[in-house]
């Protein structure tokens, strides 16, 4: 099943232990990901549960949840090829 921006937001809420509906696409990433351990956990979940491979060096360059979602969505087809 293809991910959507909303689904990615829900994954981010779960990984970063945020209340459901507490973040949106404009939320700064640094408000939810407290440190690099959170980021690597998020990447490991995307790989294990959704078969999406993300480069950690790329994901830390983004600043908002929307940019994370855009990056992940643009890589989900690449990862499955």
């Amino acid at each position, binding site marked *: 099943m293809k991910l959507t921006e909303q689904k990615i937001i829900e994954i981010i809420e779960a990984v970063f232990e945020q209340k459901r509906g507490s973040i949106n696409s404009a939320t700064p990433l640094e408000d939810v990901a407290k440190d690099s351990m959170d980021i*690597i956990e998020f990447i490991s979940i995307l790989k*294990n549960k959704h078969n999406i491979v993300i480069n950690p060096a790329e994901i830390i360059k983004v600043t908002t949840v929307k940019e994370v979602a855009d990056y992940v969505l643009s890589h989900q087809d690449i990862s499955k090829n």
Partner: protein
Amino acid sequence: MFQEFMHMQLVVVSSSYLSDKVVEEEYFSSDELTYLSGNFQGNKLRDKLLGRIAVKHSVSENDFKKVIIQYNNFGKPVLDISSMFCSIAHSYGLGIAGAAFFKIGVDVELIRNHEESLLRSIASEEEISLFDEENPDTIVTKIWVMKEAVSKALGVGIAYPFTDMKIEKDKKDYSVIVECSKWFAKVFLREGYVIGYCYPYEEIQKRIVKITYLQ
């Protein structure tokens, strides 16, 4: 201003230490406070202050305001004394820093719930078997802290795969092998956090770590 010492200084600062306003005035110039409060808010600001207090305390006995912390192009903290190495970390209201005249790295993490996939993405089965804890969240946090401390000592960032680092154990001592280098790595538990540090393995016999707690 800087202390002369042969050992490694490790300073651990808890958030309760920050509650007294005098502490801020003792450690930070108005310029530094203005910069920090202008760029960080809330818990992020708190953790930045804790990390900076820790590093200032690790290199100086009382001239804390004069300790200037800068960052190099790789984001690694550097002091204005070139022969001294320092490393800073903070996590959820605890700040730590190490300083020494040899390479070091430190890290701290609050033990919290993690998906099992995180452990598998940073460690092999062989490495996981080196830890006796029953709680998988403690194991993953210990492994993370060891490898992150080495990552900081090397000055490599998040992009360096933790699976390219190998943890070994000899009796009670842990070490981390990265390419051609070997690092002595120590982790310990304190009030729900895992605190860790590392330094080059070849001088293990000479190295003493003096730990100071500010709370």
